[in-house]
């Protein structure tokens, strides 16, 4: 029992650190640049992806024995788009304010490389508990990446941070009243932020690994 517990924990951690969608695998970079010009958009988008990722992994792993291998990709796409549409409808119904801001990008989740990749590489080969843990890890890793990227982009580009204080409310903290580095909220700044943070993430990881090896 304890061995399955640790392996589940490892699966979750794997998605956050070792195989972080953005910082390590460099997948789904397009949305990570498109939505991260304010902290709240990054956070909302991260949660939407987390939900879809877990549900898709769960569904695929439950169906893995009945899917014919020749049509597995169309079926993965159907499952993903189904869950994305459900997310979209639920958000429009229950959190309309959030939906008004990120609704446009939610539909993009259908084309996320990371979700299709996890369905193909993991969920279609494992039972539902590890698949859920994997989805959770991948989703949290993505949420973490979007949060850090949008934190730095908004802070540097607008001099403020917009923090969601609830499902429909938000608060903007303004630190500098001018725009210190406008380029950071423009698309070009997205590339800069992703690149620099990716380097930083890998540098910290490498140092940590070296220290662990030394001990």
């Amino acid at each position, binding site marked *: 029992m304890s061995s399955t517990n640790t392996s589940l924990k490892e699966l979750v951690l794997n998605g956050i650190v070792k195989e972080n969608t953005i910082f390590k695998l460099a997948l789904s970079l397009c949305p990570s640049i498109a939505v991260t010009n304010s902290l709240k958009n990054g956070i909302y988008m991260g949660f939407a992806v987390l939900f879809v990722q877990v549900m898709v992994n769960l569904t695929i792993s439950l169906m893995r024995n009945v899917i014919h291998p*020749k*049509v597995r990709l169309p079926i993965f796409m159907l499952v993903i788009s189904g869950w994305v549409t459900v997310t979209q409808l639920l958000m429009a119904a229950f959190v*309309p304010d959030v939906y008004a801001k990120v609704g446009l990008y939610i539909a993009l989740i259908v084309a996320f490389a990371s979700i299709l990749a996890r369905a193909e590489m993991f969920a279609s080969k494992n039972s539902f508990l590890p698949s859920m843990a994997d989805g959770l890890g991948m989703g949290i890793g993505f949420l973490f990446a979007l949060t850090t990227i949008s934190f730095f982009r908004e802070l540097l580009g607008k001099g403020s941070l917009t923090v969601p204080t609830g499902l429909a409310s938000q608060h903007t903290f303004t630190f500098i009243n001018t725009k210190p580095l406008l380029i950071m909220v423009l698309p070009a700044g997205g590339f800069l932020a992703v690149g620099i943070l990716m380097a930083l993430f890998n540098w910290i990881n490498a140092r940590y690994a070296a220290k662990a090896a030394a001990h």
Partner: protein
Amino acid sequence: MTAKDIIKITINLVVIYLIGGSILAFVYANASPRVFRNNEETEKKALKELVPDADANEKHEWSSHEKHAKYFIMKKGGETIGYVIQSFGKGYSSYINTFIATDKDFRVQKINILGHGETPGLGDEIETDWFRNQFKDKSIDHLKVIKGDTKEDIQAISGATISSRAVTEDAVKNGVAFLMKTVNQPAAAAEQEGGHTDVKH
């Protein structure tokens, strides 16, 4: 591929379609009435904010940039006190969904940007108070964008002239022009005259 494979694939896809379709139908059936109510509420809130004095309104429809839009005749105690019109402006990267409130002489009182997809950091300044407040008491002749300081007209946002123009000269101006052309002119004129005779007495 054997006949068995073909049958299995067909059953696979049909079953997935059916299950997926019914889940979506179920969620949609439950979500859509809520979405409809949410939209109604947002609209009500927007109107209340634009013309707080009004206690009733008459809803009409028109189209702006071939999109479905609405306008409202705002009333208080049966008298028309102003108008609110929804209008779209073609911006740099999106259509800017704007609500414009005017008094009964068609002078702009307040505008609200309900939705847009302009460049963050530049074009999205059309949402700021300083830009929107410039519209107060502007008549249709002064709805034009000037680069540089101006009190008479609308000052462009630096770095976002296209977005400023889209709001001012497309959305607001066309909306107000439509109101002036469409809304019952004789009645408005009569009210104005009534006002003048009151002064004389």
